[in-house]
């Protein structure tokens, strides 16, 4: 059960969470294992329910055996001056009235000070922040993907609980075991479809560009969720010589062809009762497509040179990066097999450029995954032998920060990878033709360059321990991206010509879409994104231009939300 720590000057929020969000466990200052609402100390005015300021939060987090999965943090803290951050208040005005105003400012923004301190000590701790409309938030925090700003302009507790629940789901569900789903609507749709189709006995067709992770999804998501007791068998049809394909798929008897020295089963038989993943199914010729269709319909297979049928009824997951409908029209793919694969329920794995909003968190995930991988272990060990960390190194303490490198923000017991926001923007704007595979390679390459650069620095072994900082410089990122070709996209959007009598003109990338609804929403999404950049994020101006009326900012905001375009994400692009 996920554990939550509430940091709030009042106990109202933690009591609300206890009452309405019972699916979570809570970290309280009393360390009792029972929820507050059934605790006898509650009636005696217990003051240990939540952390009421940073000092108490620090105490709880430092004492806890394991960090909580999430922190809920209020913005406004009504506390005496001495309990407010920053501890050093020498820069506050001395004159009484000015000081009172300054201290009140600290109270109103205390949550942000606490957030900064949490980030320094626990860089990867997700935070749901309860804000109020109009709060003047630090732009760097608005772009922090581990912080969810939950609007707290709600007067009844049930609505606030619903908002917190939504925030918690958003923050905690982006990753699921080895799969990083992200928060984009395209991946959300894919996830929902998989949840249903994985449990169906019918074949599943997975479409997507090269490198989008089709086989990974088949292996790590569809097969485990299918409930099949049999094995998963993976075959990439593009890597097997055409002459060997029939025997590979259906098996062969000894002597059926030259080189068949003994009887052997094909992949259909091997996968019986389990899942058969056929990658690049468009590579099959028409005759093999016919045989495949027969096997699918009968649930039996006959090995080459044999006349006995054997059971072969796996759940078939077929993948392709080609347009099967076009191949059917061109006569290169059998329409009956295409229909058997049920095109109405096919899964579309989005290209990375269709889910740009996921790139920052995905990159964080891939960098940490690469740092912990076997492949990089020798370099990591060499690095730590030469540059020991201040505290004993722990794999899980490593973190990724999207900022300029500072020792203050570095973890004392793990690697801290720094990547500037400029570099992050370049990465988000890059088109990633190789998709997830290309991004994963980028992450590994970037780390190898950073580690080797440190190891090749001349000089003896330093005696002092120091934070393990890996700085992925902007120049290095540019080089790995091949000269920063991706920047054209931002320039294109920011140069969206001013509206004239004929309106604006914009070049839009339309994905190979599954429906008309998807095409129109994608067009609208890209147009609004470009207009946001062109109007410097001024929603009023956007409203005036889009709807021809003043004061339409709220309508624009609502529409952006409906299209899954979050203001803080747009501001970060």
């Amino acid at each position, binding site marked *: 059960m996920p554990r939550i720590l509430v940091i709030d000057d009042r106990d109202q929020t933690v009591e609300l969470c206890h009452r309405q969000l019972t699916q979570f466990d809570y970290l309280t200052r009393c360390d009792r294992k029972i929820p507050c609402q059934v605790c006898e100390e509650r009636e005696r005015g217990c003051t240990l329910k939540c952390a009421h300021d940073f000092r108490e939060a620090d105490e709880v987090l430092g004492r806890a055996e394991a960090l909580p999965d999430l922190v809920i943090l209020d913005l406004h803290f009504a506390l005496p001056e001495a309990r407010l951050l920053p501890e050093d208040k020498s820069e506050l005005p001395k004159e009484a009235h000015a000081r009172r105003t300054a201290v009140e400012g600290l109270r109103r923004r205390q949550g942000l000070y606490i957030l900064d301190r949490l980030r320094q000590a626990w860089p990867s701790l997700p935070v749901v922040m309860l804000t*109020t409309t109009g709060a003047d938030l630090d732009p760097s925090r608005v772009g922090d993907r581990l912080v969810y700003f939950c609007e707290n302009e709600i007067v009844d507790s049930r609505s606030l609980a619903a908002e917190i629940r939504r925030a918690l789901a958003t923050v905690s569900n982006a990753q699921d075991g080895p799969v990083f789903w992200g928060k984009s609507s395209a991946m959300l749709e894919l996830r929902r479809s998989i949840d249903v189709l994985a449990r169906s006995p019918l074949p599943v067709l997975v479409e997507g560009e090269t490198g989008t992770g089709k086989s990974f999804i088949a292996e790590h998501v569809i097969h485990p969720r299918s409930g099949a007791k049999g094995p998963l068998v993976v075959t990439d049809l593009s890597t097997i010589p055409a002459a060997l394909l029939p025997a590979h798929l259906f098996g062969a008897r000894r002597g059926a062809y030259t080189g068949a020295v003994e009887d052997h089963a094909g992949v259909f038989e091997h996968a019986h009762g389990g899942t058969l993943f056929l990658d690049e199914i468009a590579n099959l010729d028409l005759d093999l497509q016919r045989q495949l269709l027969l096997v699918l319909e009968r649930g039996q297979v006959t090995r080459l040179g044999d006349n006995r049928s054997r059971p072969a009824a796996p759940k078939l997951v077929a993948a392709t990066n080609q347009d099967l409908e076009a191949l059917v029209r061109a006569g290169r793919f059998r329409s009956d097999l295409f229909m058997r694969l049920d095109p109405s329920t096919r899964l579309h794995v989005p290209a990375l450029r269709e889910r740009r909003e996921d790139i920052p968190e995905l990159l964080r995930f891939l960098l940490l995954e690469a740092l912990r991988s076997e492949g990089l272990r020798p370099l990591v060990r060499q690095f730590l032998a030469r540059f020991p960390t201040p505290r004993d190194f722990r794999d899980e303490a490593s973190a990724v920060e999207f900022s300029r490198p500072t020792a203050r923000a570095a973890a004392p017991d793990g690697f801290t990878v720094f990547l500037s926001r400029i570099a992050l923007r370049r990465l988000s704007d890059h088109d990633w033709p190789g998709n997830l595979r290309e991004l994963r390679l980028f992450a590994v390459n970037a780390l190898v360059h950073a580690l080797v650069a440190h190891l090749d620095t001349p000089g003896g072994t330093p005696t002092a321990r120091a934070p393990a900082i890996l700085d992925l410089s902007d120049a290095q990122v540019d080089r790995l991206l091949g000269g920063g070709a991706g920047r054209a996209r931002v320039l294109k959007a920011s140069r969206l010509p001013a509206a004239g009598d004929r309106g604006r003109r914009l070049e839009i990338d339309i994905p190979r879409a599954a429906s008309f609804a998807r095409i129109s929403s994608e067009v609208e999404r890209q147009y609004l994104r470009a207009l946001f950049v062109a109007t410097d994020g001024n929603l009023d101006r956007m409203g005036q231009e889009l709807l021809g009326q003043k004061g339409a900012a709220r309508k624009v905001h609502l529409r952006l939300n409906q299209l899954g375009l979050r203001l803080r994400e747009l501001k970060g692009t």
Partner: protein
Amino acid sequence: MAAARPEQAWLDQVRHDLVKRLLWPARDRRDLGGAVAPGELRVALIDLEGQPITAVALWESLVALAPRSLSAIPRQVFARAVTAAEQGAADDDLDKVLALESAFEALARAVKGEM
């Protein structure tokens, strides 16, 4: 994000520090239906430093922070609504507490008229 105008910021403060906290249990009860349990509507209000304070005293401290441009707003009318809501909370009278909603809306309209 641009900083809010002082009048709007003050109104937000009144809503956050006083109205929201005073109304929260009453709105929960209204939405859930059913009878008010004894003491259910009472809330522990706090001042800027986290010390316990009555609703009326809190309103007076907020009035002291109001921008000069708001000198003409009907402070006394809202003060009466706050007093009635606090009394309603003590008496388990749901309607008296909920009446603060419309009083705050009237206050907000008056503030916006001065902006």
